[in-house]
Every structure is written in C-alpha cells, then in structure tokens.
C-alpha cells in the first residue's frame, strides 16, 4: 500500500519526468482503441448480417459433420428425423427460444423474357421473423417483409432483382445506424411481377411453379444477392416435391447455453442412431465468407496491435529510462535510508502503473472525442462483401478500453521495472554522487 502511495506521489511530484511516458501511453492507448473499435464495428456488422438478417441464430442442425461440405440434396432431413428434432425441442424448452426449418432451393427463374439462376431458401415466415428480431424484423428494401405477405410471394436479392428489371421507385439510404432498414413499404416495379421457377426434383423430374415478386432485399452479401431468392417453406417443398428440409436453425434463450444444447442434442441423436448433428453456424460451409472475413480482421488486428504496442512500449521505456536516470540520487537516498532494492523497483513499477492509468484516461478522453467526431462525419464506404454501403464508425466498447488499459499498464510497469532495475543495482555512493 505504501508503495502505491509513493508511486502516486512520485508520479505527481515528478510530473515533468512522467509527462513523456504518460503521453506515450495515451498515444498507444488511442491508436489501439481506435483501430480495434473500428474492427469491432465491422465484425458486428458481419455478425449481425449472418446471425439476424440471414436468420442463422445460434445453432444449426444438419446431417453433416460440423458443417463440412455435403451434398445438400442427398442430406435432407426426412419427416422421421424432423419428428425427432421436434421431440427433442419439446423436452428442452428451457434452452430454446425459437427454431426455423429451412430448405435450400436452387433452379432457374424466368419472367417470360429473362432467365436467371436462383439460389436461396424456403423457410417458415413467422418463425423466421422472430429469428431476425430485434434489428432485422423489416428486412426488405422495397415491399413488405415476406411474413406480412401471402405464401406465393418471393423476395429477391439485390442483383437478381436487377436482372428481372425490378426498380425501386425512390432510391434512398435505408440502413439505420444501429443496423436494419427503416420499416417502410417502399414501392417498386418489376418488368413483370410474376416469375416461373423451374427446378429438378429429387426424382430427377423438372417441376415449375409461378410466384409473385413481393419484396426486394436479400441477405446483404454481395455475390449471394446475385442469385438470392426466399420463399415460404411449404411452397418450396411443393416445388421440390418433398416434405424434407435441409437444416434447422435455432436461437437459444441464452447464447451462453450453446455448449449445453449442442451436447444434449448430439448425445440424443447418437443414442437414437440418427445422423443429425448440432453445431455452430459459423462452422457451416454457407458461413465460409464470414469465417474467412473474421480471419482477415483477426490478422489485421494482431499485426496492428503488435506494431502499436511495440512502438508505444519503446516510447514508454525511453521516457522511463530518462526518468530513472534523473532520479538516481533519489534512489541512492532511498537505499541509504534502508529501502531494499526490490522495494525500490516495486515503487517504480507502481509509478509505471500510475502512469499507465493516467495515460489511459487521457487516451480514453481523446478516443471518445475523436470517435464521436468521426462517427458524426458518416463517411460512407463499401465494407468487403456487404452489399449495402456502410458508414465508417468507430465503436465505443468499454471492454476494449479496459483491456487496453490493462495491457498498457502492464507495459508501463514492466518497462519501469527494467528501467529501474539497473539503477538500483548500482552502489549507494555511485547513486548519491550521480549528476
């Protein structure tokens, strides 16, 4: 405790010496927090895009080994397996918030003049809406979400809707700052509002169905939106002449219960010799773009953090060495008063922590102000595979601030320790006669 008191008092009384180190910590803190704040916002955008907008929830249930690539047609979940899942869900209501059945669909869409490949899902409209809560309940850029329409309507992704000559009458920026679209039924027109969907059924027969384009939206991922089409599950099953589904997506009451749910489900499936597996949607082949994008962010984050911390560490070390050198006589006095060597290094380390805390507080103030200013500017850009332009936003994440504070305090304390270590080893007369 007395070391802490002395550390604080020394920092304040030698504030001129400590200023350099405090500034270095503040700079390092700002750089670290601003960059990671930005990365965390982009990560959240992607997470939100998959988890809510694309209705991935928390867990996927499929006939695959933890999401590995499978033949979707040959790995559908039949009625008996669906019953097993339904029973399991009934028995585990304590974990479950909502689940949605999905059937992967693909084929050729035609409006009488133009054809395009489509790829997408048939799903339970009502339950899907719940999976999109709270941000993406309204997921259409034009028209109403499918859960507010009849079951013969489909939603088209951005680019496929261009192929069919669908035009939103009034173009505007729809994405709100917190994600999701402003709920408004924007009118749109397509060259022809009816489409014929042609697919090959399980038995190899060609089947066709007429549907109405009811909404434009998609999942907000470039490339996927080039083909994306969503329709109701019952219509999709009718089109493919099947009662099977491709997979289930589950939202848990508490995402922390993921492990419990997965263990319980996989055990139950194994016991009944059912091939189904529950796993994290992030491991699924459909979410590969997500996983790889997160990998890229992680790599950037690590590189930037390493560079910034090293530069800041060097800068703090520099300032601490100077501070120690100028206080050699003080160290000598303390030693002659009976202070042990490790007590003195502890005082300097504590001083390092105090410097780290003060620097981090200053850095936080700078970060908050600059984040607010930059966020206000709303610089718009395209963030990788997200198809909607997004604003450049730096997140104010308390955990990040806390983590940066801890890391920089540790760096300051360590550098202070090393800076003082050599000085305290000198003999008392040498220390007392230092200039």
């Amino acid at each position, binding site marked *: 405790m007395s070391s802490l008191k002395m550390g604080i008092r020394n920092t304040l009384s030698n504030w001129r010496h400590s200023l350099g180190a405090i500034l270095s910590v503040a700079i390092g803190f700002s*750089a670290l927090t601003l960059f990671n704040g930005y990365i965390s916002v982009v990560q959240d955008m992607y997470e939100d895009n998959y988890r809510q907008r694309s209705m991935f929830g928390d867990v996927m249930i499929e006939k695959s080994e933890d999401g590995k690539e499978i033949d979707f047609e040959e790995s559908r979940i039949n009625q008996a397996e669906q019953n097993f899942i339904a029973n399991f869900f009934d028995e585990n209501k304590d974990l479950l918030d909502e689940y949605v059945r999905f059937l992967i669909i*693909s084929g050729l869409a035609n409006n009488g003049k133009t054809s395009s490949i489509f*790829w997408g899902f048939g799903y339970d409209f009502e339950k899907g809406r719940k999976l999109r809560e709270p941000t993406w309940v309204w997921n259409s850029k034009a028209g109403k979400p499918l859960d507010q329409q009849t079951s013969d309507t489909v939603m088209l992704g951005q680019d496929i809707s261009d192929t069919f000559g669908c035009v939103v009458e009034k173009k505007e920026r729809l994405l709100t700052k917190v994600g999701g679209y402003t709920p408004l039924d924007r009118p749109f027109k397509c060259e022809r509002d009816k489409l014929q969907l042609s697919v090959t059924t399980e038995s190899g027969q060609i089947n066709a169905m007429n549907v109405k384009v009811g909404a434009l939206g998609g999942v907000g991922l470039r490339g996927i939106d080039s083909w994306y089409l969503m329709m109701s599950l019952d219509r999709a099953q009718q089109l493919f002449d099947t009662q099977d589904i491709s997979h289930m997506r589950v939202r848990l009451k508490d995402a922390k219960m993921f492990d419990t749910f997965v263990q319980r489900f996989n055990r139950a499936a194994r016991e009944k010799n059912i091939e189904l597996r529950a796993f994290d949607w992030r491991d699924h082949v459909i979410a590969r773009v997500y996983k790889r994008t997160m990998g890229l962010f992680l790599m950037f984050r690590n590189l930037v953090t390493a560079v910034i911390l090293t530069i800041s560490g060097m800068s703090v070390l520099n300032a601490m060495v100077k501070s120690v050198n100028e206080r050699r006589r003080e160290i000598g006095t303390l030693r002659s008063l009976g202070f042990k060597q490790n007590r003195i290094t502890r005082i300097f380390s504590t001083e390092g922590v105090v410097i780290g805390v003060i620097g981090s507080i200053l850095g936080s103030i700078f970060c908050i102000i600059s984040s607010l200013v930059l966020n206000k500017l709303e610089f718009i850009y395209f963030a990788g595979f997200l198809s909607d332009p997004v604003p450049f936003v730096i997140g104010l994440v308390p955990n990040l601030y806390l983590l940066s504070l801890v890391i920089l305090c540790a760096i300051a304390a360590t550098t202070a320790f090393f800076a003082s270590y050599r000085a305290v080893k000198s003999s008392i007369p040498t220390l007392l006669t230092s200039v």
Partner: protein
Amino acid sequence: MSTRLALAFKNLGRNRRRNMATASAIILGYAGLLLLSGFVTRIEKFFRATSIYLNHVGTLSVFKPDGVEKHLLKPKKYSLTPEEQGKTREIMQNLFPENEGIGTSLQGFSLIGNGCKTWPVRITGTEKDLEKRLVNHWSVNQFSAELLRARRGSGIWEFKNITPILVTHKVARNLGKSKIKSLKEDAPPQFSTSDTYDCSDQRFHLRLADDSNVQLAARTFQNDFSAVDAEIVGFYSSGLELLEESAALVPLDALQKLYETDGATKISLFLPWNTPPEPAARRLSEALRNANLDLEVHHYKEFSVNPFYAGFMNLIYVMSSFFLTLAICVVTLTVSDTMTMSVLERSREIGTLRALGFRQNQIIRMFSEEGTLLGLLCLPVGLLIAWLTSLAVNSAEVLFEVPGISTQIKVVLEINAMHSVLLGALLVGVTMLSGWITSVRTANKALVKLLQSHVS
C-alpha cells in the same frame, strides 16, 4: 552542410540509448507498414490477375449503355452488334497497339444436364485463342497459380470438332460427372445411347458419371428454346467461391449458336499489367464517341464490372489507411516526445550556440536535420527487418484463406519498392517535422533564459 551533418551525427551519438529507443520505434513502425503493404500488394495482385484474366473482366471492357446492369434482362437489346464489335476492336487496336489481347465475350444463363438431372449455370462464351493466352498469362502463373493448380483436364482451345465445355468442380459434382474428355482418342464409352434410361437406377448414374457428354439448354435471344451437346474437357475454378456452384465456360461461337445470335455482351481489352486503367478508359471512351459509337467503357477497378475486386480492396484500403494514419501519429508523437526531451535538456547548449552567433533558424535546422538523420538511419534497418521477415514468411509457405476466394492462397509478402520509398519519405518527413516543431519554441527563447536553464 557537411558541418551541420557532422554535428547532427555527433548529437545523435551523445544520447545513444534514448535515440536507440526512438529509432527502434521508427524501425518497427516502418517494418510493420512495409509488411502490411506487402500483404495488401499480394492480395491486390491475386484479385487483379484472377478477375482480369481468368474471369475475363479485362483491363477495359466496352458495353452497350446500361449493358452492365441490363444485359441479362434484355440480352438482345444490350448486345453489341457485329458492326459495333468490328469498329470497337479496330479502335482499340489503333489506340492501344501495345495491347496483350482484345476479346469478345457473351454471358448468359443456361441449364446443363446429364440426361437425368439439370443444373443452372452462369455461362461465359469466350474466344478460344484469347482464352489460351489469358490462362497462360505470366501474371496468372505468378499471382493466381493456386487457381491454375485447381484445373483438371484441357483448355477449350485444344478441341476442334466438338463443343468443349469447362465446368467448375462443384457443377461437375452436382451433375454427378467425373469424366473429362481427353485429347487422345477416347476408349469406346461404357454408356451408349442404346441403353435404357432409368434415372432411378444407381448403376445408370455410374454410367452417366463416366460419360463427358452434357446438354446445354437455354432460351435464345428470340425467346425460343435451344439446346446443344457439349463435352466436358476440364474442371476449373472461377476463383470466386460464390460462383463455384454455377460457372461454366464454352467457346464464343458455341454460345452464340446456343443463343442464336451473333451479338456479344462486351469486348474486353487487355493492356500491359501496370497500365493505369482510368486514363486508358477515358481515351477509349473519347475515341468511341468520336467514331459515333454510343458505347460505355468500364475498367476493372469499377464496382459495377468487378464487384469482388472493388468491394474487397475497398475494405482492405480503408483498414490499411486507418492503420497507416494511426502508425504515423504514434511515430510522430514518439519522435516529438524524444525530441522535446532532447531540446529541453540542451537548452543551455542552444543558448551557447546563440551566444556564439548562430541564428535561430540555423539552430532549428540543426534539430530538423537531427530528426531527418535519425529517420534516414532507421529506414535501411526497417527495410532489412521487413525483407528478412518477408523471406521467412514466404519460405514458410503459409496458406491463407481470403474471404470469397474458392481456394487457399499462399501468403506472400511482397516488399514494394514504390511503397518503401513513399512510406520512408513519409516517416523521414515526420521525424524532420518533429525536430523542427520541438526546437522552434526553445530556439526563440531569450538568450539569457536559455543560458540559465537547468538540465531537467
């Protein structure tokens, strides 16, 4: 000048330990920035080579007005007529005689079937000779070798009497096709047309898998139904994960036959690797206008024609620029911090110099030169560290998964000469400025105050 330089050297040597710490901050900052730029350069080259050559985007491409967005909606209306194709090629050839190729391509949708099952594909028709040159382009071999390695079988240019088709591995899998037609005379097919079709029989599927023949079916530009037979001569990778489920490539004449047209979606111009696309696009646009051709010119960096390249590089550039800004700020403040301490410590020395007749701006210049020298001395070390790191990483053959790319690519850190010079100049500028800013105030103090000042 040499006296001042010698003085700057001497002064740097006086505070060796502190200057070493500052230098290490500059060195690491510089090395980090170079490595990041090396990574970005590599990724950019991969995307550029893949999109321009393997996905036929071209350095420049000419479409009908609004053709980029609407050629699939109204292919007939937004196709280039043979006359437009001829004139455009002529203008391209005259304007850019250094070009590496000019090619016409047609794009559309088609169903590809194996007799039992059909699969929709986005199909591209391209000129055989050009395709051969594009696949063998040096940049593809150097930067997108991973995609070439994913290829199986032959190229479409190697066959004359049949309609060759390349499909992606996933399309082949979805169709249940494993057979690739070889260049040599094939053994008599195990499957013959006299066999009874029974799609529910697994043995029949095995026979189908062992036959390279497929049928392409599509709507013609006149909205009639059309079909042609084709032989799978190879499996390839489009490079883009999202296209892997549905991409196919055939010769241009075969696709024109399928769509019953002599039109084309676009004409692509392939310019030497380092040609800046924007001014070239402006020149071509002007030439087409002068020739009374109402056509649109696009270049490969545009979002509309190359969304993967534009979108991904945009994100990378935003992140890198942000990092660059932060790193420069950190280095600037670190150097300023050190210089401030140094200037304050040497207040009496500044006073003495002033008393000896040195002018204020001479003293400021001396500190600026000290900063410049410190920066300059750090650059070769930073470059060496970055180079050694890049050598270690490159030889480690680390594979990296790029979002949206169908295959893993090798991490190669390319230390770019231009970036090294620019980043180096920036850092030296920053250190010089730090020396200047920190010394201005002290140098302008009254002489008496400077001479009376204490060390700390």
